[in-house]
């Protein structure tokens, strides 16, 4: 059986930060990432970060990922596996099972675990939402910014939070026309600076509106939007838009299957967008060997994910008796 001091599950901003921090205290670290590349959502983020300079404000997301990978490569005590998914945690003996590239299966017994499994995109139900052309905003961003593929010609964006606004702007940069942004709330959820940018380019933002139907036989050829009342029920005139992509940016939910499997105490916190593991200020869950960091601990953003990862990393090291730099 493979063994490791600290296993980090997920190689996004939280996981990379946790791994680097634990490694800096001399812990033997194993990091698994289900995607083909490390970096998580950072690798598709072409915009500059906000916030504090200490948290890399002013730097573009994919550059932050490069900086984290550079830091990690300075440690000889970190093993990373990409295309490798942790598929189970077995509380009886603390073993984690992993599948790598679909056909390699292995078990590993870590002393401590940091769950940095990120989030999944939410969907909303509407007729024909199964048609090709209905995408999550994350998928659109991956196609454009990671693979260089233009997803279509004309898009309806659903959701005016930061993701919806930023991805709309990036779609325009890629030569895609944004027919409009619908937002169910009565105000824009994202930063004004992002909203102003797309408004200046002439993109209409329809507040208190939602998508009520996708149009098309084999794939999306249009979308119908409608105003909604205080109880989010569609009312009034239906407006048809001629689009070939419907992009959903309606929020994220923490990915926490492994935390449930481990029997961690879970609490439903609407502000964190769903069930999350109860944890202390050091990001340690109710399970003494399991920590959580990043969106898996509640939906926030990459800057907080990196801080949480650092805290979890140093805390695992401390729990292993390695809490000080030599």
């Amino acid at each position, binding site marked *: 059986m493979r063994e490791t001091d600290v296993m980090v599950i997920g190689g996004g901003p939280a996981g990379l930060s946790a791994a680097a921090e634990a490694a800096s205290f001399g812990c033997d670290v194993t990091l698994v990432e289900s995607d083909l590349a490390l970096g998580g959502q950072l690798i598709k983020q072409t915009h500059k970060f906000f916030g504090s300079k200490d948290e890399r404000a002013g730097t573009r997301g994919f550059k932050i990922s490069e900086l984290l990978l550079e830091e990690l490569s300075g440690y000889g005590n970190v093993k990373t596996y990409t295309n490798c998914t942790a*598929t*189970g945690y077995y509380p009886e003996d603390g073993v984690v099972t992993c599948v790598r590239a679909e056909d390699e299966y292995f078990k590993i017994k870590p002393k401590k675990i940091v769950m940095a499994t990120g989030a999944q995109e939410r969907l909303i139900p509407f*007729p024909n939402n199964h048609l090709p052309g209905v995408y999550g905003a994350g998928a659109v961003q991956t196609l454009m910014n990671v693979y260089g593929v233009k997803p279509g010609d004309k898009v309806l964006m659903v959701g005016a939070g930061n993701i919806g606004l930023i991805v709309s702007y990036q779609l325009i940069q890629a030569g895609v026309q944004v027919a409009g942004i619908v937002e169910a709330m009565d105000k824009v959820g994202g930063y004004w600076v992002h909203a102003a940018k797309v408004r200046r380019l002439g993109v209409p933002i329809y507040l208190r509106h939602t998508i009520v139907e996708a149009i098309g036989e084999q794939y999306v050829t249009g979308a119908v939007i409608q105003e909604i009342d205080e109880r989010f029920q569609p009312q009034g005139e239906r407006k048809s838009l001629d689009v070939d992509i419907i992009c959903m940016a309606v929020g994220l939910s923490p990915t926490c299957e492994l935390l*449930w499997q481990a029997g961690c105490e879970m609490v439903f916190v*609407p502000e964190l967008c769903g069930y999350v593991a109860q944890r202390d200020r050091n990001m340690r869950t109710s399970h003494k060997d399991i920590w959580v960091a990043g969106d898996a601990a509640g939906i926030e953003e990459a800057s907080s994910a990196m801080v949480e990862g650092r805290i979890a990393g140093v805390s695992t090291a401390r729990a292993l008796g390695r809490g000080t730099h030599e």
Partner: protein
Amino acid sequence: MPHKSKQDEIIICRCEEVTLGEIREWIEKGYDTFDELKRVLRVGMGPCQGRGCRDLVLREISRISGMKISEIPPGRFRPPSKPVKLGVLAKGGDDE
């Protein structure tokens, strides 16, 4: 059986092709937890293991039953969290 509306035909669980109409029909029969619906409809049992549909199903249960989402059992989570080929498991894994 009444004529199916467009709403009824919305696909909620894309992996197992379970529609909103089917989910509503079973919730109204009293199957008002995620696990019960999973057993009768296979909702959430496909490759994504409920990542896409669990929230939608819980919201629908909440809407019909009047329970808060936080009061509805979200279902059991068991390994594996993604499909693993039987042959790969049968080989027993690499114990390096």
